[in-house]
């Protein structure tokens, strides 16, 4: 499944291509936004405008719209970092030579979902104290006799399943997309090597399908970065306003 490591060469648990790409993504994002924000002109140039568009998208369309209120600014850095970290690492899958979405390796997805999990629980406790767990698991306005049924479901869905789905959604879409494109590539190679000219011709069909899948994957890569960040914002908002839910 996994490529062998780069350093030391060929060993299973070494420094791998995936790790290199993750580090590269940090460099790319930091460089781009530092350059874009560096000049700080009131009338922005092209680069600054692009940076402001990207930043403004996370700040306004995700953080402000979902969390809202006065305190959304506190969570903008986390949401901003998450969105672009995931976006760049996903887009790797659509770049020919790199061709490896970092989160098709599950470890990274676990780490990010874990960070978000700890964050929103910490926010909930800081905002509401230990009463937060009651607020999060006992919905108001529900008849008492259903509570024994509701409370376990709420506990499981909020505190157990949520981080798992949060991480696996990202990981699974990236892995599946990666696999489909790779399989299509291998399939084209296999078919084109066939002696039979008709069988050789079918490789064109696979090529067409592969290109369509490639486009779809590119869309999903951007979409999953958005979904992951959006869910993070929703979890944080839920923790902040647990008493009104």
């Amino acid at each position, binding site marked *: *499944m996994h490529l062998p490591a780069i350093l030391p060469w060929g060993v299973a*648990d070494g420094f791998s291509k995936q790790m290199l790409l993750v*580090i590269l993504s940090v460099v790319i994002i930091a460089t781009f936004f530092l350059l874009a*924000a560096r000049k700080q002109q009131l009338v922005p140039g092209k680069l600054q405008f692009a940076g402001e568009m990207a930043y403004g998208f996370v700040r306004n369309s995700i953080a402000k719209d979902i969390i809202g209120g006065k305190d959304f600014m506190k969570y903008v850095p986390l949401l901003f970092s998450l969105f672009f970290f995931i976006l760049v690492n996903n887009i790797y899958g659509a770049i020919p030579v790199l061709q490896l979405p970092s989160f098709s390796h599950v470890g*990274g997805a676990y780490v990010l979902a874990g960070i978000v999990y700890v964050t929103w629980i910490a926010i909930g406790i800081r905002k509401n104290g230990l009463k937060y767990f009651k607020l999060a698991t006992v919905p108001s306005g529900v008849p008492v006799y259903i509570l024994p049924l509701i409370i376990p479901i709420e506990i499981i869905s909020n505190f157990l399943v949520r981080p798992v789905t949060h991480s696996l959604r990202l990981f699974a879409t990236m892995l599946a997309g990666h696999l489909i494109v790779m399989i299509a590539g291998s399939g084209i190679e296999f078919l084109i090597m066939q002696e039979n000219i008709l069988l050789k011709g079918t490789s064109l069909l696979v090529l067409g399908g592969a290109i369509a899948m490639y486009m779809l994957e590119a869309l999903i890569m951007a979409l999953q970065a958005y979904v992951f960040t959006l869910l993070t914002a929703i979890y944080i908002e839920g923790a902040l306003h647990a008493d009104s839910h």
Partner: protein
Amino acid sequence: MNQVIISAATEANPLVPNVWEMGVVLVGFAVLMFIVVKFIVPMFEKTFAERAEAIEGGIAKAEKAQAEASAALEEYKQQLTDARAEANRIREEARAEGAQILADLKEKAAAESARITAQAHVQIESERQAAVVSLRSEVGTLATTLAGRIVGEALNDDERSARVVDRFLADLENQNAGAAK
């Protein structure tokens, strides 16, 4: 050999993470978060705030300019009204002054004409007086002469004839004054 099999088995399950990869993602994300919190977000927010301030400042400036312009307009209108009133006042004054001058001139002309008339009267009176005096003496002399010629030399007594003529003329004068009255 055993090691390879175990390794392959763990690799085959995609849900089992590679701990080193997790570490790299964790550290990488932490570094990114640090840069974002420390530099990127403050820089963008500063620009946004400055821009908002610039726009609001521009609006305030425009409003101030607007207010100044309308104040100036008001002032000009006021000045225009004042100037019109002033012009009217001056025109009225001029008209009144003209009328005054005309009246003065008329009065002066009337006085002059009255003076001239009076002078003429005086002159005429004095001339008449002179004429009367000269007539009186001449008429007396002529009449006496004429009467003397008619009556003869008897009437050459100057004293008497002069008295007769004087009395006659006084009567005549009295008669004339009575008719004038």
